[in-house]
């Protein structure tokens, strides 16, 4: 396996943290068993109006990043990948 194809360990952990939160806290209570990392979570109903703020609360309290009001929208928080990108950008 080529080294360049590997996802850095820290990013992999971060994505898993995000995925686990969304899976356990937001998707499963709605009876949604699975979703992909690119899936639009608002369009598929995984994240609703309250879920957005639960997610933001998770990002702020657990992942220690500040999310501005302008960033709380359907694009920035669209998918697991988009959320991961946001957190990485914020932590730089």
């Amino acid at each position, binding site marked *: 396996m080529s080294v360049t194809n590997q996802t850095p360990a820290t990013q992999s952990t971060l994505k898993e943290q995000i995925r686990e939160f969304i899976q356990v*806290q937001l998707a499963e*209570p709605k009876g949604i068993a699975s979703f992909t990392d690119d899936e639009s979570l*608002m*369009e598929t109903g995984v994240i*609703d*109006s*309250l879920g*957005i*703020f*639960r997610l*933001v*609360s998770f990002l*702020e309290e657990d992942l220690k990043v*500040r*999310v501005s*009001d*302008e960033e*709380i*929208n*359907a694009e920035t928080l669209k998918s697991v990948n988009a959320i991961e990108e946001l957190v990485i950008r914020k932590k730089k």
Partner: protein
Amino acid sequence: MDFSWSEEQAAFRKEVIRFAKQELNDDLTRRDEEEEFPREFWNKCAQFGIQGLPVPQEYGGGGADTLTTACALEALGYGCKDNGFLFSLNAHMWTSELPLMAFGTEEQKRRYLPKLASGEWIGLHCMTEPMSGSDAYSLKARAERKGNCYVINGSKTFITNTTHGDLFIVFANVDPSKGANGVTGFLVEKGAPGLVLGKKLHKMGLRTSPMSEVALVDCEVPAENVLGKEGSGQAIFTHSMEWERTCILASHLGMMQRLIETCVKYARERQQFGQPIGKYSAIANMVADMEVRLETGRLLLYKAAWLKSQGRHALKEAAMAKLFISEATVQTCLDAIQIHGGYGYMREYEMERDLRDSVSGKIYSGTSEIQRVIIAGFQGL
């Protein structure tokens, strides 16, 4: 952790109380009865700097932090008995100035914030519709892009500040297929073609705060008057609600303190069976419970305000503050009337107005039931 006000905040609080007692209570019984909004009080508050408190100085405001603003509103609630007027002030600050500060373009901020901060203009937002209250994002108002404009059609109800309003933040859906993600905020100025004030609504309390229906009939709004981006209405509205739920009941804290002091004074003076009624545990316990409610409410509100002042989100904390203080205020009003007996039930004693005013706190800015949904939702339920 520091639970005290700074010397400056304490001095400011005293000054606000003095101002409110002296300037904001005249002729209240008549104004309440006749549902009259006191524009002259609005102007006095503007001169004092109330409306501009949370607005940055570069836009003509006072640039006060959230806790200082909450401190001022609590002081107003203590010194000013006109809860309807204070409600209008809050609507102006939290659902008009704050969303503009957070989501407005630089040009929008420069155009509108100085007028709102100076009190020259009165702001409001239009969200609720006849068929969408708690389920706010199911609104039916539609906005259609036509060239450089949006054309809005829809009906709004229970809208505060309308008859004196200058800047309406109207929420409409630009793409219903996207559901809540199509909801968009628009800045609509008084006099815009198609912006029509409907019938005036007569309320149980907060009667000095104007409220009416609003109709949007082919209302044309320039595209540059979109607040934020297309589809960001949900974020704007939630932002407004978070701020409003954090701060709107600060004045209720002041009202509760005023009622407690009134009750204590009465309980010391009123003699029955040869001693002051405050010597009876039935009365003393009621006062003790009132005091506990007040202090608990303060802790909840100050915590939410502190989070906001740190630039953090506080949806759950704001919901807890709003839920607790609104319900505590109703109970405190009922207890105050009970302690005063027959006198408390008389309009002359002014507590029945506080009670009527306080009931709405359990309804506006999200009902108590919705606050519980939010709090439970944060627990994963």
